[in-house]
């Protein structure tokens, strides 16, 4: 099966592309797709540990199985809104609350 990976922000810069396609075995999961991506684009390897996953525009978990034609987005920590964040903050930003 073939899926599309969407890349944003730092991941896009590191990969030099905002999307790419991956051919994967049937029933592959998101985690397996990311493993394949890591091998295909080693420059991304250091930036895949703190990301969320959106499958066809909704946040989901890495054990989710993929289907042919899916769009998988790798979502770095978001930073919309205004200004720059406070320095030296701690804790994990709320993620996944918007389904």
């Amino acid at each position, binding site marked *: 099966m073939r899926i599309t990976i969407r890349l*944003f922000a730092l991941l896009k*810069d590191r990969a030099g592309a905002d999307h790419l396609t991956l051919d994967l075995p049937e029933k592959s999961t998101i985690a397996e797709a990311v493993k394949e991506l890591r091998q295909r684009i080693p420059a991304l390897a250091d930036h895949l540990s703190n990301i969320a996953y959106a499958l066809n525009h909704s946040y989901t978990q890495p054990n989710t199985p993929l289907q042919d034609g899916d769009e998988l987005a790798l979502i770095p920590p978001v*930073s919309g*809104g205004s*200004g720059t964040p406070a320095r030296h903050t701690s804790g994990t930003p*709320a993620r996944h609350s918007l389904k």
Partner: protein
Amino acid sequence: MQGDDWIDILDSPLPTQAAITFITTPDAGGMAIFLGTTRTEKNPQQQELIALDYEAYQEMALPQLQTLATAARSQWPIIKSVILHRTGRVALSEPSVLIAIASPHRHEAFSACRFIIDAIKADVAIWKKEFWADGSATWVEPNAPRSTT
């Protein structure tokens, strides 16, 4: 723009006056308008910020903003609302996000504005890149070390 909510992601300066006009209604006793702007900043190398650049996953971020408007309506008696976010280069002092709420009383308008901006910063698929005076740039990743490109 549709109905009583105007939700959009724009690559042009935010239409502040049009947003105020949109939410203006005789049923409202309070209209809260929040503009989030690019402010001066120095990085650890003491370089001055010259601009921010916003990137959105449009197909995901726009429905997320619409979900936020719906969530705000479920909590407060909102009459009209506007949520607009910029993409692309936003210079110092220019707004990158605009939230405008009209409600019967000011408390609800203030609360809804705060709820929406806090949720945008935490959840919506939008990213910003800082551009510094020495030509360097950094993607902002909350709670993570700065990553220079």
